[in-house]
């Protein structure tokens, strides 16, 4: 089990997080003794077997679900609930269908003066590549465009942390590759702290600085792997394939089909 060097001043710190659900009188342990540290500007991916609770973990981190025990701190401040400083990008599209593209991006910006708001909206429309679609409604957009809209909406409020829950799961293969490149491009520009949950090992190895592998339920951190490769990462390079294989092994997945 390789341990990554923990950053000295972590952006996000999780201590001994546990989550149990009570269902029909029986207590079910979902997350057990999760400890992790994420530094500012890091891109961390979380993978794990299906149903292990990685989405649930992300929801707890985002403040949507209170943990049964343990602490979550961002910038040394405990997390008590959802907050615009840490925006969640959901698996199913959560763009508001009654607002235009511009309306969606500007949703979190209502406190700003009008001129500044317009400027920011234009900036992020350009950043995600949706120029020309300012007045379009979500139902006129493709799946990939809707995800870009959601990312733009998330970034527009300048959050400290971006949580992404299998954001590209519903897209086709080619669109997924494009979206990953886009996400990295934007991340290099904006340097947000990103925690991304995915079931796709390739996605984790392509995107993350570090990959956390969760065990099956009740989930704890099985191992942490540091991906030491610079971007752009060549998917045919031996280091890439080695890292990928390593993760498959850690997950206990057979290599042959």
């Amino acid at each position: 089990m390789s341990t990554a060097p923990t950053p000295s001043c972590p952006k996000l710190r999780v201590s001994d997080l546990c989550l149990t659900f009570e269902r029909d009188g029986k207590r079910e342990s979902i997350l057990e003794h999760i400890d992790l540290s994420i530094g500012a500007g890091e891109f961390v991916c979380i993978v794990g077997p299906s149903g292990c609770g990685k989405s649930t973990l992300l929801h707890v981190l985002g403040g949507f679900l209170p943990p049964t025990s343990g602490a979550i701190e961002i910038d040394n401040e405990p997390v008590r609930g959802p907050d615009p400083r840490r925006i969640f990008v959901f698996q199913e599209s959560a763009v508001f269908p009654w607002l235009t593209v511009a309306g969606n991006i500007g949703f979190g910006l209502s406190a700003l003066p009008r001129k500044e708001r317009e400027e920011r909206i234009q900036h992020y429309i350009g950043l995600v590549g949706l120029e020309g679609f300012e007045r379009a409604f979500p139902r006129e957009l493709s799946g990939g465009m809707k995800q870009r809209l959601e990312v733009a909406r998330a970034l527009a409020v300048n959050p400290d942390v971006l949580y992404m829950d299998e954001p590209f799961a519903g897209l086709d293969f080619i669109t997924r590759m494009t979206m990953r490149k886009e996400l990295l491009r934007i991340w290099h520009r904006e340097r947000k702290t990103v925690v991304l949950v995915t079931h796709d090992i390739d996605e984790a190895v392509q995107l993350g600085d570090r990959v956390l592998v969760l065990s099956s339920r009740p989930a704890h951190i099985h191992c942490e792997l540091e991906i030491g490769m610079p971007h752009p990462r060549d998917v045919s390079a031996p280091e890439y394939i080695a890292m990928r294989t390593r993760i498959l092994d850690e997950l206990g997945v057979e290599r042959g089909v």
Partner: protein
Amino acid sequence: MKRAEAIFWPALLCAALLLAWQLATLHTPVVPSPVRVLRGFGELVRKRILLSYIASSLWRVAKGYLAAVCLGIPAGAALGYHPALRQSANFTIQMLRPISPLAWMPMAVVWFGVGDATPVFLIFIGAFFPILLWTAEGVRNVPNVLVLAGRNFCSSNVAVIFRVMIPAAFPKILTGLRAALGIAWIVVVAAEMIAVDSGLGYLIIDSRNAGQRYDLVIAGMLLIGAIGLTLDLGLQSAERTKFLSWGFSHEPAD
């Protein structure tokens, strides 16, 4: 070509029905022919009571309907949001709902007398339940992700309700509003037949009572239909605005 077709066929059917009507009435003097109905209509316009009757009916609908909206939407939203509330209120609502508004008539007359308040009260009762139930349904069916996203961006629960839940539920709320308007229009006519002395419902009953003027009765009926249709079309056009059309699937073109 398509538009010409869309006008031709209904016009043909209409003409055929009118002809059949005209022929049928040649034998019975009691049922008036289309021509006589038309003349009766002209008579009403000349006598100038028509406009005031229409205004009375519309005004009563407006009052009762607005009261139903102001009470029904918040109550429905609360019911949709809290499953506990829904459980508590459901049985009562299901028992009260089938009591048609007009069954309240005798009590309404006793409480409010013979005047405007009675029809307004009945309209309120008729319009309240559809609005309540459709709003509850709309709020309940807001996809969970939208609520979570709302909580993520908004600083207070009130903001989540007004900026996310109500817009997300609005298509269903609008459906309830349309149903309620239809019912309100039915109720006002019925209430006016029994309990007041102005309005379109009264016109019909009065024309029959004061001299068997069935031509006026039918003229009144057609007028009621036309106004009801206009009201409904008005709300229907709201469905097509871009703000709301995402929530309605429109009939696929052939």
